[in-house]
């Protein structure tokens, strides 16, 4: 009897096929995506060429990511790492955002049928509007208001960093119904695209990296939506069949499960940089003194090992979810662990290669720009540490 960290042959094969495909088909268009601040012109042809199902959201009835014996969440880790191994733009092209995740967590059965199932089944792009100009990590400071007006909600306020905001089928909006109640007054609303009063202030921000991902700035100006567009409610008010865990806390808990996926993305990018660097360095090996080459070989191995440890933490966190015992701390450990180390690996690879490493001839410089956001969004490294510290020390941790 012992433990086994081995993935099933089927899942490993799926990951290998994804990786080979993303390198072969997606990576050559990475520079174009970065320069255009948009998906490459031929993005849907690239997705057409994918040999395995990836749950595309751009076409109806796309085949979902297959079910493997390893579990749904563990499968997603393999998906995230290997899709991003080619280049992160391709995930933007496949993925439909995270706006539907809170629906599954705190929506009524009817809301799930309306807004969650179609997204998963036939592919729809969703937006997620939480952050505001004056608040990010501290979501209790949300200033966007939702005021009930008879059978409607009226939304007013500003949102930034809304992924896909300008193109999403609907946007999941966090707004306060009662400022005096702080975090408890925050509820979650579904605003379909083209709702009057939903204004796209800026379709896409000018960013350091992940430029092909649309990051929108939104404003809600007397934006009116039906009563039942508040998650957990129906047309008459609070729904009897809503999950017990509602509101902001419930909605945000839907993000915790996604945190190891972000870490897996970081590992995919860092592994890509490491593999490119190793190949280039081997080809230039004669340029280094034997002493330096010995150091470099040891460093490449050490970086590989660091990525391996990150994978273990990801697997543990998602294994727990798949087995019905999710741990917020385990997810925070996974996300707190890998992204910064992965940044360092990409930087290190650039350094080992010298000025060629930071030139646009290679993609490492792009990946160094892309990867920075992974230690920030979906909970900064500092917030992950706070989550872990509170698990250890209780509320006294600060």
């Amino acid at each position, binding site marked *: 009897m012992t433990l086994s960290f081995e993935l099933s042959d089927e899942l490993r094969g799926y990951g290998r096929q994804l990786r080979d495909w993303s390198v072969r088909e997606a990576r050559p268009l990475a520079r174009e995506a970065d320069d255009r601040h948009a998906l490459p012109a031929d993005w849907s042809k690239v997705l057409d060429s994918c040999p395995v199902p990836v749950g595309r959201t751009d076409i109806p009835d796309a085949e979902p990511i297959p079910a493997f014996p390893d579990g749904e969440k563990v499968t997603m880790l393999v998906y995230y790492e290997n899709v991003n191994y080619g280049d992160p733009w391709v995930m933007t092209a496949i993925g439909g955002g995270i706006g539907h995740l809170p629906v599954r967590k705190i929506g009524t059965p009817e809301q799930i049928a309306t807004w969650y199932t179609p997204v998963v089944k036939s592919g729809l792009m969703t937006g997620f509007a939480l952050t505001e100009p004056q608040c*990010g990590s501290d979501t209790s400071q949300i200033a966007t208001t939702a005021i009930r007006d008879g059978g409607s909600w009226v939304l007013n306020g500003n949102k930034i960093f809304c992924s896909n905001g300008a193109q999403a089928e609907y946007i999941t909006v966090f707004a306060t119904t009662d400022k005096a109640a702080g975090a408890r007054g925050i509820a979650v609303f579904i605003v379909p695209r083209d709702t009057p009063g939903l204004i796209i202030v800026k379709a896409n921000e000018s960013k350091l*990296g992940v430029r092909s991902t649309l990051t929108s700035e939104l404003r809600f100006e007397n934006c009116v939506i039906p009563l039942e567009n508040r998650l957990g409610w129906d047309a008459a008010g609070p729904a009897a069949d809503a999950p017990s865990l509602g509101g902001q806390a419930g909605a945000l808990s839907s993000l915790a499960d996604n945190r190891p996926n972000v870490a897996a993305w970081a590992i995919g990018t860092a592994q890509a940089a490491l593999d490119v660097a190793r190949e280039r360095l081997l080809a230039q090996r004669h340029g280094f003194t034997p002493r330096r080459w010995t150091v470099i070989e040891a460093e490449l191995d050490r970086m590989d090992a660091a990525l391996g440890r990150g994978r273990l933490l990801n697997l543990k966190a998602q294994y727990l979810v798949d087995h019905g015992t999710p741990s917020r701390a385990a997810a925070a450990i996974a996300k707190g662990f890998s992204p910064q180390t992965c940044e360092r690996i990409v930087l290190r690879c650039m350094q080992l290669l010298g000025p060629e490493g*930071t030139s646009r001839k290679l993609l490492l410089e792009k990946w160094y720009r892309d990867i920075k956001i992974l230690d920030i969004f979906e909970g900064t490294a500092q917030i992950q540490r706070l989550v872990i510290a509170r698990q250890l020390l209780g509320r006294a941790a600060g």
Partner: protein
Amino acid sequence: MDLTPPDELIAVAELARSLGLEKLAPAARSAEAAGQVDGAVWRALTESGLVSGLRAEHGGDGLIDAATQMAAAENLAYGDPGIALAALWSGAAATLLSEHGTAEQGDRARRLSRDAAAPGAIAMYEGFGRGPDEWTTTVGGGAGTITVRGTKVGVPFAAAADPLIVVGTDADTGTLRAVVVPAGAPGVTLEPADGAIALSATQSLVASFDVTLPADAALGGGSLDPVALAVSVERIRLILGAVAVGVAQRAIDYASEYATERVAFGRPIAGFQGVSFLLAEKQMRVEAARLAVAEAASLIDGGAAGADALGPLRRAVRETVNYAADAAAMTTRDAVQVLGGHGFLTDHPVELWYRSAAALAALDFDPLCSAFAPAV
């Protein structure tokens, strides 16, 4: 023992700081987009006397001491590292001609640093962790000719420079020599300009040389002091360390100000040790790097001109540049981190510094001087 900065150093640092903030910082984005320093900014820099040190007979005020020069470099980079390096590297080429050149070469120094469109440049870095004592580019003389062969990386103004001074190793003696290569000389091969993560105003490229020129193209003609040239080379390498300190300090100051204004969980985020210690630890690194740059500069100023002193000087510069550049990379990434999502937008300059520090950290890097460490 004297750690009190002389009045002249303080005055130069203040002048450079104000130039950096008033001229360089506002021009940073446009210089990056254009891949060139704006003419008015370039003039302001050259006229300040901060980027070169020409002898009086070449129209300058003479070489300033290295400690003062590094203070100037740091504070210009506090404004913008890309513009600062472009001007400092061009100024270094003029200084090298003035300091070590023949009378005719010294005359070229006079006009060099004034012209943003045709700056001077020095080709010296080779990558592979090599220091000057390991450079494989060779300089050798034939009958009435001099030949330079080898490949250099990170060559600023590689396409525009006139002249380009190539530093290599004497094929016979193993000491450093340099060749003054005029623009358009046959045998210079430039890699296509694809751009890079940052520092675009330096117009840096990979350049390969198989160039034979008349013997008078040798820097200093037949009377070059190779040890003096080697010390000048260390001084130029050290600029990179000073620039790294400057951009890192700016990132700390910018992020610190943000952290005192940005409120989360009921107080400025500066009130959380997760933020304040992050910056405090980087301040330790930056201060250590700043003193290491100053100490290496003091070795130059204290007469490292003797051949015996060259080894310790090279070691000090190598370690210092690597430490400072690593510190700048860590510091600028933490500055982005402190600004959070806002730091990821081009609305703030921290992303530019993050990119710039990465370019600095890859240029004169030696894997024997800096080690990979996982963050956790």
